[in-house]
């Protein structure tokens, strides 16, 4: 009876680890999708209203990107420099327990490069800048999706298999 409980616990633990590991791939995809969604909203709103960046950000954020955009707004007001504020907000979001922690250096660099010219030139260049980032994100998103499909499923299956193996060994 005692052995069965331990074997069951080992199985559950292994499955959880597998799912959690798989979720990091999922989180990356979801965060990238959310950022893409925010950027789409931002560019549409910019196109239609030509409102200042902080106002656009308010309308562009969603559940997953809120943590980053709120920090960005706060930082702009204190730092008075938009590129630096973006970078620090990104670092904050990455260090917090949010989907941003699953982003890789490649994505972070793309976001930070985008912020260098954010707000400080004309509308045409702002839209070009967003489009460049969207293109980069699109290819990153495709790749992240593929990885999630392969590695995500694999880690879940591995979790289950390892769980069964541990359980059998303990029994």
């Amino acid at each position, binding site marked *: 009876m005692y052995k069965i409980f331990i074997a069951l616990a080992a199985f559950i633990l292994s499955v959880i680890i597998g799912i959690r590991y798989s979720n990091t791939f999922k989180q990356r995809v979801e965060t990238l999708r959310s950022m893409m969604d925010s950027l789409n909203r931002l560019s549409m709103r910019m196109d239609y209203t030509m409102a*200042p*960046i*902080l*106002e656009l950000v308010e309308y562009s954020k969603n559940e997953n990107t809120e943590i980053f955009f709120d920090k960005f707004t706060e930082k*702009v007001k204190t730092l*008075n420099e938009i590129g630096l504020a973006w970078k620090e907000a990104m670092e904050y979001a990455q260090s917090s327990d949010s989907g941003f922690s699953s982003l890789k250096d490649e994505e972070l660099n793309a976001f930070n490069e985008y912020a260098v010219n954010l*707000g*400080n*030139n004309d*509308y045409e260049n702002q839209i070009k800048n967003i489009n460049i980032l969207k293109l980069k994100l699109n290819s990153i998103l495709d790749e992240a999706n593929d990885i999630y499909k392969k590695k995500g499923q694999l880690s879940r299956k591995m979790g289950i298999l390892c769980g069964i193996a541990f359980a059998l060994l303990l029994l």
Partner: protein
Amino acid sequence: MKNNQVEQWERDILPLFPEKVRNILLNAANKQALEEIRLRANQPIQLCYSGYDSLVYAHDDVNVLSVKDCMDIINRMAEYSVYAWEDELKKGFITIRGGYRVGLCGKAVLENSSVQRITDFTSINIRIARERVGCANDVMKKLYKLNGELCSTLIISPPGCGKTTMLRDIARGISYGIWGEGQKVCIIDERMELTGCVRGVPQFDVGPRTDVLSGCSKPEGVQIAIRTLSPRVIITDELGSYEDVKAIMDAAFSGVTAIASAHASNINSIMRRRPLMQLVHGGIFNNIVQLGRHNGSVGIVKEIYSGDLKPIAESGKEILCIKFS
């Protein structure tokens, strides 16, 4: 003792400046009479009052402002979103929260011989916007017909004599119905100075029956107003071109009362400006009010003329409308 308007502009404008400039302005004398703050890269700060100015140097003998400081100030004014003020920047100004118009100077970028934008800003001229509630009271009594109908009026003066302040008070008064029945007013505010509109929101009280079309050219604005807003009175600032004149004529011939301003030092100057001459000869305006300065006060009604350019009886006495105490 600070008055409310000084507190207001200190609150609105000072956070936009670097600390050095902020300290200079906090210690400036006679702040209630300050009309313009002029900042230039590598130059002292120029503070312009009514009729005189003063140059303020930094205590440590270092330039008060660098070129980078100028750019930082403009970035803060534009809320870090230069693209949002693209059209205004092309025309060399932006209007910031509180309704202050900021004139800018720098390097013009040309395309097909026309200015596309101004970059590398080196001069910033902040005009302290003033709200003088009731400054048009005395003059407005003379601008109504005996049957209570409002006359179309042109206000003329050299720059900085209170035309815009007076127009704003006229709009507010007509809209509230201070001098007669309250009427629907439409303000065509091309350069956002009259209402100080920031993102479409007037920063001054222009009355409850007033619609504001900001950032819109006068000809287009007048057409939109007539077709969709059915105003009784159209108010606009700084007439100058033939297109502006045609727009005002369209409004007048549509049965709308037009109240406008134009840069002209006196009635003879109007006659030397062809578009304005056309307007006067067209009999559009029933009255022409000439404003001026006297003893450091602005907004003094020097003379009121009828539409046929004859001084109206009893208008010879100067009326002090705007006084900085």
